[in-house]
């Protein structure tokens, strides 16, 4: 009888940590991936505010048909994250046109005859991400270069609202 009473003593409580560990690992994987994506984004620039700009329709644009040019706060023009276009004045313009031509030629299927006559045009969409604080000089260079390729679909990247 005494033996029986010992066996009914309350056992030490154990918290089942397995689901919590599962969830925590899921969270870690999520944050690792998101952090990586953020790091792989383009040159960080402070975009100008434009509350009436269109939302960028990410699902509609084929990534192959768009090209992003960034102009950072140090007034440098770059493709992607660190591909800075060197030069000043005429040299810079020539380098820009050369690079844009290469990008346009790589997307061969985007070239079409200009419906209004005058040769072929590239349907490549260029997004210019220009820092709000810099002068518009380099922005003008980009416009000149697009015109010379010729690429006519140029978009200006903005922010719809202030995010602090």
């Amino acid at each position, binding site marked *: 009888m005494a033996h029986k009473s010992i066996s009914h003593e309350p056992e030490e409580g154990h918290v089942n940590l397995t689901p919590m*560990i599962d969830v925590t690992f899921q969270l870690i994987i999520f944050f690792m991936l998101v952090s990586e994506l953020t790091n792989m*984004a383009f040159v960080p620039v402070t975009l100008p505010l434009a509350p009436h*700009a269109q939302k960028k329709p990410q699902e509609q644009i084929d990534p192959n048909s768009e090209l992003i040019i960034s102009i950072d706060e140090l007034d440098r023009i770059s493709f992607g994250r660190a591909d800075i276009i060197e030069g000043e004045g005429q040299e810079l313009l020539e380098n820009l046109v050369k690079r844009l031509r290469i990008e346009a030629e790589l997307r061969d299927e985007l070239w079409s005859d200009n419906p209004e006559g005058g040769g072929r045009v590239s349907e490549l969409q260029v997004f210019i*991400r220009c820092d709000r604080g810099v002068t518009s000089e380099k922005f003008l260079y980009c*416009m*000149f270069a697009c015109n010379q390729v010729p690429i006519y679909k140029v978009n200006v990247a903005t922010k719809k609202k202030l995010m602090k």
Partner: protein
Amino acid sequence: MSRKKKQNSEEIQELQLTSMIDVVFQLLVFFLCATKFPDPEALLKSWLPRNQGLRASQPTQLELEDARLVLRADGKDKITCQRPDLQSPTGFRPFTQMVTNDLFTNQKESIPNWNQVEGYLVGAKKNFSEVGEGTKGLPVIIDFDKHVKFKYVSKVLDICAKLNITNIQIAAPELKKFTEEMGG
């Protein structure tokens, strides 16, 4: 001896998870703090005109059927905006200035009254509709020099987007002159 061995083998084998959970939480807190989500971006469409090439920024003759905004930087923190006015000796009339603080840097800046700029474009659009020429809508020419900060150019583009004006042209200086000035 054999009894003792049996007791040991019956003990439940448990993994010591505490230290792993500690590390996992450290990692989680790190990523929570370090992650910066990318801000959503929007776009202002500014299709370049086809087959028009590059034109000089100062046409010899003012064309009244389009709206023209001339942005000029006057010092570091002052920007002026003018519109064509044939009665003015210079051919242009400035919009009134207002002093405000920059949203990001909080620095004082003298900028044109954007409400007046919008009012001018609304009026021009209304008049243009009455004439009913063309199908692309009111042509708006934005003429800015290289010293004008980009945020003001985008502000004008934003006003055009608000008014649903899509026929926007950017008046650029002559290419050769521009690149020579920039040290090419």
